[in-house]
């Protein structure tokens, strides 16, 4: 089992008190699996991604544990965690466009980064060049400054750097959102190819765009207001979802071909609850058409079919 997460809880300080960004999530990602992590803004998907590698600023672990390849990750010990970072678990951050040091050539920064982690940069040089070619970049990119590259090129450079040590788990946070449609497809397919070539053993792809996940992810985990709603193979989530939130979310996505006159789509009324004082029971209760008295009690995230988990009493 590549990654198992058990009742993980992460809060972060805001001016108005603690925000329960992640409120007890448990799931697993198998070897070779690309898990899509979807949900609207504020559902905690980015926080979940960060909690597996490095929390920043005002976030802190409240509860729970994470095991990677059978080994418990020392989440709370930042120094010990360094041994796992980059080698075992790596990340392509949401801010990839500005993740490269502006005043260092890309080649020099990469070798300084590798040397600082005790790795001989010259050994890896051929492999680095091979992978750059693989993602459609010429090797003289290494001699250029970040300011000279386009957004799509920077995204690919960060993807290559982050996976250079063949990590067991890669977290790809919104790597397609800031790109044009054509480069969006290219980058998404690169992730699959990196998994196929064994550059990463498994990956979590975080995005709000369910359509992209349907194209590349094996399974999709949908989150809502800091908790897990549903996880299932991509095909099942998109075409036969069980959780009411997933169903409503899918029904509000205009398909290429859907017309206003013929197929009138509907959004989900209301807004996600504030996570500063989250409501008890199921957090989707006040927006859910199937809500009943039972929903006052929090629904467990349980198997309803092999590889298909849902957190809802009325599925």
């Amino acid at each position, binding site marked *: 089992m590549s990654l198992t997460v058990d009742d993980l809880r992460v809060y972060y300080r805001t001016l108005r008190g603690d925000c329960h960004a992640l409120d007890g999530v448990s799931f697993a990602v198998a070897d070779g699996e690309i898990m899509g992590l979807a949900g609207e803004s504020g559902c905690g998907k980015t926080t979940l991604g960060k909690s597996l590698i490095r929390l920043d600023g005002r976030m802190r672990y409240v509860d729970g544990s994470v095991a990677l390849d059978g080994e418990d990750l020392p989440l709370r010990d930042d120094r010990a965690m360094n041994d796992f970072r980059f080698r075992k678990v790596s990340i392509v951050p949401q801010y990839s466009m500005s*993740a490269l040091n502006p005043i260092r050539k890309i080649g020099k920064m990469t070798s300084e980064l590798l040397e600082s982690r005790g790795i001989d940069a010259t050994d890896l040089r051929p492999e680095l060049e091979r992978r750059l070619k693989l993602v459609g970049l010429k090797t003289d990119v290494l001699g250029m400054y970040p300011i000279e590259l386009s957004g799509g090129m920077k995204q690919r450079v960060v993807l290559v750097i982050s996976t250079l040590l063949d990590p067991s788990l890669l977290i790809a946070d919104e790597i397609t959102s800031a790109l044009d449609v054509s480069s969006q497809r290219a980058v998404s397919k690169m992730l699959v190819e990196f998994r196929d070539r064994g550059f990463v053993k498994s990956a979590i792809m975080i995005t709000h765009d369910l359509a992209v996940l349907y194209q590349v992810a094996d399974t999709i985990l949908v989150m809502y207001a800091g908790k897990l709603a549903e996880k299932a193979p991509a095909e099942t989530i998109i075409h036969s979802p069980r959780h009411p939130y997933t169903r409503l979310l899918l029904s509000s996505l205009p398909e290429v071909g859907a017309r206003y006159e013929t197929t009138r789509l509907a959004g989900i009324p209301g807004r996600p609850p504030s996570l500063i004082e989250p409501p008890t029971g199921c957090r989707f209760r006040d927006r859910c058409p199937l809500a009943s008295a039972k929903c006052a009690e929090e629904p467990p995230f349980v198997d309803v079919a092999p590889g298909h988990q849902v957190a809802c009493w009325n599925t």
Partner: protein
Amino acid sequence: MTRYLARKITIYLLTFFVAVTIDWAIPRLMPGNPIDGLISRINADPAASEELHGFFTKSFELDQPLWKQYVNFWWGLLHGDLGPSIAYVGSRVDELIWAALPYTLALLVPAIVLSYIAGNRVGAMAARRKVLDNTVLPVAYVLTATPYVFLALLLAYFVAFQWQLLPVSGAYDFSLQPAWTPEFAQSFLSHWILPFLSLFLVSFGGWAIGMRNLIIYELEADYANYLQSLGTPNRLVRKYAYSNAVLPQMTGLALALGVIVGGALVTEIVYGYPGVGSLLLTAIQNRDYFLLQGIFLFIIIGVLIANFVVDLLYVVVDPRTRTGLQGQQ
């Protein structure tokens, strides 16, 4: 890169042109006849003032049409002829300034360079260690708020007069003549330390605060977060933060040159150090207009050259300007 430097040079040439024009225009734009105003303030006896009146009219060439005066002013300037000095009768302004300049530079250049380097180092350390942050920073705030003249007075009073550790006034012992002898060097150094120190400390405070804030800002930048997410040891992250923070500090250095030069002039006056500053004091006290205008031009030229040097250093430090792309403003 050439585009970046070309733009900078145009600004400096334009600035020099404006400064010279200001220098030429002020005496001529004063209400009333400037010469009467000048002489009344020199309050010399009637006979001398009559002779001075003719002297001024000829040297200011007020009888000429304005544009002719302007052209002649530039012509004289380009030939290094800044006119005669009134305070030091018989010597020319440019000679006086060239004589005083080495002492000012001996004070100014080390003070600027060393305070910049030390200030940035200490500021970077303060951003890292809490204990330093709570001790060095408050001191830096006091230092940068202290007027140059007051720190000079404090050091002069305690170190020189009360504790008699170091001499005050002059650049070397009166009995000596400038020569490459260890004895002269020792005397020169002992006179040099206090003015240098007072100039160094005030500027040091400014850089330390600036760098400390910039480093904290850079450590929050995306590239720092990314490196830390990949488990990079803090040493490398801080190194990158420092090299990125130095860029705005360089621009800051260029902007601060005017203030530091002003500080140097005042510090020289407190210590009677024989640089351009002391020359300035005598020029003010004796209403020596040509000397004042000469000093004004030297300060402008000096600051412009220093600014250009900082721009050259900036091109070295910020590679993006070398790739033809616009460096930071």
